């Protein structure tokens, strides 16, 4: 570049006055630099990838092209990315518990690493001069989307699983498209930073800085042609990089274990001390976690009393009504199936009930394509759910009447609820009033 070119650039993109965090010597931690940022990114990236993939898988699991299954906007392009024609499978029965558990564990475990990564690169927020070129300005604009998008997605997710809804907007589409926004900025960021990461690892070695003790903990050297987060006037180190990353790793693993406790259950459940659904409710047959209690959904108690009838209809208008006793007199099936909540907890119990396929036959529907399940619950986004062909015909897909040898409790859906292998928990409709086979 000619001297005049340099001159023009300086005038176009001036320095800010050196004050506060914009001052060159303000940021002093000797640990910051491209190696540290790269190391944290290498840990963060796989977690974000798992979290994103399982998130999109969860959207698929809802079979949003069927009936009223779509949480937002109906079954149309632009309301999530759909795999039209690919029904969510019924096997293995723990499939949704697994993918959604992974979503939660990877997401929660990523939080400390994300915070550490932001700590590592925060001096670059106060880069001075703030803009070096048009391309640099666009990169920095993109970082606003990346940082804002990530914080938005992680914050809404973690708040939502704790059943607090301070958003004022609907969680599902905001979390979903917030993630798309984050990924749009992230892919560009990765493309931009891969060479920097490669350089940092090549110069410093991937693992070599982890072996340094406090005496040998030195600031990172600058990389050519890039503005890095390495300090201009570093202070004396008080922590090795090994200890810092170890602390982040412990935090991440600790949060992962807590979250895993409410996914896996069993002995691990005791470790879910701060997870919202990790708590036992007692030792009775119905004492396992409830997504929504009977009281919370506002069904009038007389609707689930002795007068309750299950209404079954088929597309040719044939219909029948059954009492709970008549249902219990039919051929019953028992199966160990999980309720796997979209909020990441699951619980596996032994359910007993009537096969959906047998109920379909009562109204002359052999091999139905789908069934619409209507709950007595009058409001709520999924008070009516449609199950796909594989879900209706599976031999363990049932209208459950009993659990662990006892009648269902009101909280678990008395008089009858849907239980289908691998079905997302929120589709396992409780307080069923009507089945419509088609």
């Amino acid at each position, binding site marked *: *570049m000619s001297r005049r070119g340099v001159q023009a650039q300086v005038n176009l993109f001036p320095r800010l006055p050196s004050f506060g965090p914009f001052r060159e010597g303000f940021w002093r931690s000797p640990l910051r630099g491209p190696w540290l940022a790269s190391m944290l990114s290498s840990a963060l990236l796989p977690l974000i990838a798992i979290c994103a993939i399982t998130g999109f898988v969860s959207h698929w699991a809802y079979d949003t092209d069927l009936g009223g299954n779509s949480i*937002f906007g109906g079954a149309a392009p632009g309301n999530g990315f759909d795999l039209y024609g690919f029904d969510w499978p019924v096997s293995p029965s723990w499939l949704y518990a697994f993918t959604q558990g992974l979503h939660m564990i990877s997401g929660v475990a990523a*939080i*400390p690493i994300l*915070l550490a990564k*932001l*700590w590592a690169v925060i001096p670059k927020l106060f880069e001075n001069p703030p803009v070096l*070129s*048009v*391309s640099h300005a*666009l*990169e920095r604009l*993109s970082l*606003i989307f990346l940082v*804002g*998008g990530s*914080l*938005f997605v992680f*914050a809404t997710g973690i*708040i939502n699983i*704790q*059943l*607090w809804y301070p*958003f004022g*907007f609907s969680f599902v*589409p*905001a979390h979903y*498209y*917030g993630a*798309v*926004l984050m990924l*749009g*900025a992230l*892919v*560009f960021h990765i493309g*931009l930073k891969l060479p920097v990461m490669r350089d940092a690892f090549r110069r410093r070695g991937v693992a070599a800085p982890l072996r340094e003790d*406090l*005496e040998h903990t*030195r600031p990172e050297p600058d990389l050519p042609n890039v503005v890095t987060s390495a300090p201009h*006037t*570093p202070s*004396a180190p*008080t*922590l090795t990089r090994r*200890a810092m990353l170890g*602390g982040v790793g412990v*935090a991440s693993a*600790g949060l992962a274990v807590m979250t895993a406790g409410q996914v896996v259950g069993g002995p691990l459940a005791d470790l879910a001390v*701060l997870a*919202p659904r990790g*708590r036992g*409710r007692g030792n009775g047959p119905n004492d396992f*976690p*409830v*997504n*929504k*209690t009977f*009281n*919370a959904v506002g069904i009038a108690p007389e609707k689930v009393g002795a007068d309750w009838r299950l209404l079954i209809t088929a597309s040719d208008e044939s219909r029948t009504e059954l009492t709970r006793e008549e249902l219990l007199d039919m051929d019953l099936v028992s199966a160990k199936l999980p309720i796997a909540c979209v909020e990441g907890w699951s619980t596996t119990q032994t359910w007993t009930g009537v096969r959906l396929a047998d109920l379909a036959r009562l109204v002359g529907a052999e091999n139905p394509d789908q069934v619409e399940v209507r709950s007595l619950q009058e409001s709520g986004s999924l008070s009516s759910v449609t199950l796909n062909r594989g879900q209706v015909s599976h031999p363990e897909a049932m209208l459950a009447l009993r659990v662990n040898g006892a009648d269902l409790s009101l*909280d678990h859906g008395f008089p009858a609820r849907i239980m289908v292998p691998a079905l997302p928990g929120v589709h396992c409709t409780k307080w069923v009033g009507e089945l419509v086979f088609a």
Partner: protein
Amino acid sequence: MARFRTAYGAGPLHLLAVLASFAVVAYALSRALQLTANPDRILLWLGGSIVAHDLILFPLYALMGAIAAGLLLRRGKGSRLRIAVLNHLRFPVLMSGLLLVVWYPLVAGPAERGFMRTTGLSKDVYFGRWLLLTAALFLGSALIFALRYRRLAREGPPDEAALDPA
């Protein structure tokens, strides 16, 4: 091409990539805004999350750290022992703070009634559990410090060059 590089500051591929990225961002944002009630609240939360982290959470813990380090390691007299004390405080404080930030709605949040109605469980155990975890973190850190104490006291200050590179 050279003129493009001079004017733009990078190659044309960079411009293509950044525009593609912005297109995805704009699409996602427009879908989010169309699909939810109160779209202005989404913008508020997007911008607010940056402010909450960069201008509140980060300065808060960085300042706490700087004050602690200033008190313990005054005028560069950072003996190994004092540095260890600092770190054995840093670890439990940061862990406890992280747990509070992550599980804030359960530990200290205001959603008591909704939580109970929905899950049938009371929420008031969580604050106590967080306090217990915090106590355990400090205790564990103190125990490990006690185990290291002898060795740390025996070793002198780390070499001057490492402590004060200026």
